[in-house]
């Protein structure tokens, strides 16, 4: 038996106030002063109800790098961040380049039950950029993989990229490209510009990203395939994607919360928490990616949540690992960077952080948002609070957050995944309760959503 939940007087993204009745894992009713008995009553006053956030770019590290993150810990980090689905990148060990690995990742996610875990398959075997991985087997597996990426590495060989775009088209999938020309970024440490020269850190030039995106949109056009650009970070990349879309090329692009908020100036103290790939860029790049997101050139926000053990960051800059955790802080950073600045409203956020990423990943259940009959995957967010973000607010294994000790707006107060709670009163529901609810959901035969 699944729980009946009634949320009172919450605000929808269009500004209207409503009650939300959840029954049998779906949104049963919307409207003011719903009269119904419920197992759980939640006061939604002052909270915004957003459809469950969908991350198209998450590193869960399992299998192989469980000291950094596991599917369990990463799922909990996602839930406390308001997510109900994440796409797990393929750079695990073994690499997610076979049906066996992607099915294992998916089923572990299902068992823990905090979020839907959708595996991303590797484009090339072992992420080595030499030959295609078993894309068809992964697409036809129980995991039904639709997004393929060598993220962390670029599919830099132009012919291989062409073949990948064509072959994935066969299965209705999309290539998510990590755009980084490898020769132009050998040993690269931070954005190349005046500051990298002064700090003596090897530069990661914008052109290394823009040149690959330019090449790939032309390849996608030539072979009539879909392309998704991961973590676009420069003003020039926004221009290239804008140009490609104007030409009718089937390309989508994502930006991370950190590229919407932070700049390369943070590298000045050599604090490796700010070391990330692609690197933090200039002020004008931050402005350009915000504007690109606002005008639709950039389709979605994705976290690139990249947990690392403490020792991978507790060292000199050049020895440190690239990446920052982002699931727990994502919505707050998005609020600070593009909502509070007036560029996007909450309806836009629902589109770029739930509906469209689900559409790109071909994940069902998110097309309608919060609507009667839709799976009850949504999150309740209090945008009015402000908090000093601390490591105690992280729920994944990684503490490599660039926001520690900074003040961020907003807080996730509750998250519901397929009709059951994963977060209540701003805190995670315990693992056994969530796992039991997930089993009950599956036994109720509502199906995956």
């Amino acid at each position, binding site marked *: 038996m699944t729980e009946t939940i009634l949320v009172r007087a919450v605000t929808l993204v269009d500004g209207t106030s409503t009650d939300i009745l959840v029954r049998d894992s779906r949104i049963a009713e919307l409207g003011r002063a719903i009269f119904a008995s419920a197992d759980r009553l939640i006061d939604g006053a002052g909270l915004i109800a957003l459809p469950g956030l969908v991350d198209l770019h998450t590193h869960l590290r399992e299998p192989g790098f469980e000291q950094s993150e596991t599917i369990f810990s990463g799922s909990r980090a996602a839930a406390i961040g308001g997510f109900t689905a994440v796409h797990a990148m393929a750079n695990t060990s073994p690499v997610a380049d076979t049906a066996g690995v992607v099915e294992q990742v998916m089923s572990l996610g299902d068992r823990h039950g905090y979020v839907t875990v959708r595996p991303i398959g590797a484009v090339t075997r072992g992420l080595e950029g030499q030959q295609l991985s078993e894309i068809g087997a992964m697409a036809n597996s129980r995991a039904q993989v639709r997004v393929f990426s060598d993220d962390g590495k670029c599919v830099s060989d132009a012919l291989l990229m062409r073949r990948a775009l064509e072959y994935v088209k066969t299965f209705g999938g999309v290539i998510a490209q990590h755009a980084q020309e490898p020769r132009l970024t050998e040993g690269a*440490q931070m954005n*190349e*510009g*005046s*500051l*990298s*020269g*002064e*700090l*003596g*850190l*090897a*530069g990661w*030039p914008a052109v290394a990203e823009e040149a690959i995106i330019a090449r790939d949109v032309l390849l996608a056009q030539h072979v009539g395939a879909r392309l998704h650009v991961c973590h676009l970070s420069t003003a020039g990349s926004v221009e290239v994607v804008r140009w490609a879309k104007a030409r009718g090329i089937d390309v989508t692009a994502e930006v991370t919360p950190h590229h919407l908020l932070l700049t390369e100036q943070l590298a000045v*103290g*050599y*604090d*490796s928490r700010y070391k990330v790939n692609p690197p933090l860029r200039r002020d004008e790049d931050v402005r350009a990616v915000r504007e690109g997101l606002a005008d639709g050139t950039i389709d979605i926000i994705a976290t690139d949540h990249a947990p690392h053990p403490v*020792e991978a960051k*507790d*060292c*000199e*800059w*050049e*020895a440190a690992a690239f990446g920052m955790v982002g699931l727990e802080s994502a919505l707050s950073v998005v609020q600070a960077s593009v909502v509070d600045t007036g560029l996007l409203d909450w309806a836009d956020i629902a589109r770029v952080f739930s509906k469209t990423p689900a559409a790109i990943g071909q994940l069902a259940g998110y097309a309608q948002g919060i609507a009667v009959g839709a799976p009850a995957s949504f999150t309740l967010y209090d945008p009015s609070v402000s908090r000093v973000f601390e490591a105690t607010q992280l729920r994944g294994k990684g503490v490599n957050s660039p926001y520690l000790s900074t003040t961020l707006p907003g807080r996730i107060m509750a998250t519901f995944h397929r009709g059951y709670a994963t977060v209540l009163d701003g805190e995670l529901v315990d693992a056994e309760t969530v796992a039991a609810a997930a089993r009950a959901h599956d036994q109720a035969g509502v199906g995956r959503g």
Partner: protein
Amino acid sequence: MRHLLSTRDLSRDETITILDVAEDMADVAEREVRKVPALRGKTVVNLFFEDSTRTRISFEAAAKRLSADVINFSAKGSSVSKGESLKDTAQTLAAIGADAVVIRHGASGAPHVLANSGWIDAAIVNAGDGTHEHPTQALLDAFTIRRRLHGADSRGHDLDGVSVTIVGDILHSRVARSNAWLLTTLGASVTFVAPATLLPIGVENWPVEVRYDLDIALAAKPDVVMMLRIQGERMHAAFFPSAREYSRIWGLDDERLAVLAADSIVMHPGPMNRGLEISAAAADSPRSTVREQVANGVSIRMAVLYLTLSGEGGKQ
């Protein structure tokens, strides 16, 4: 002065203080007993993650002349090469009771990390970090220039109006960076000369003039020409086609030496590639300050260790 991490952090007054204290330290070298008890009981660790015998022995001599105890910790062949982290090494040195750590490291910013990490409470002196800075080299260069210009009356002087041309691999040079900040802080005008491949992106925003043509730069009769060492491996990374071409276009050969004003000086941080970036005649000419630079290096490093460890430095 708590640490010496970068010349960029130094004000004009702080810099002149260091140079003046170095003058006092140079006087020590003239005495019969070349040793003062200023740092007796202090422990200075030379923590070298890169081989640099020249810099290490200069710091070692400096510390010993101040009566400090010196521990040389070469990362080569130690636990560091077996994967020990900078953090563990730093905490080991803290436990040993190091008062100052002189660090040479291949990673830019490693001294900053050490100074701000909380791993160790010692004074940190940057002895060269990656392609970032080499502050004591710039200080000894400024000291050398000032002595050539003002001799025994150097104390208190800045470098107002002095023109310095730095030639070579600016991109990878920590010496060029430290000098660009320090010499301009002291009032000198600095010109970089290099092929575009060996200039950092964004160098136009630095407080220096940039030229590609060495002959045009030398025709302006700079007071100082500083030649930087060219690493052989740069050739293979396509920064320039061959040593011969580099030498022909950017080397200080005998013809170019002859163009210089009679009182101009030729500097090189060493070690030199004779016949590549500098000809033997240029290296050995009376204009050359190469050996003075080495001697002055000890005085500068004495001053820096004294000011960071004596607890009264920097703020005069």
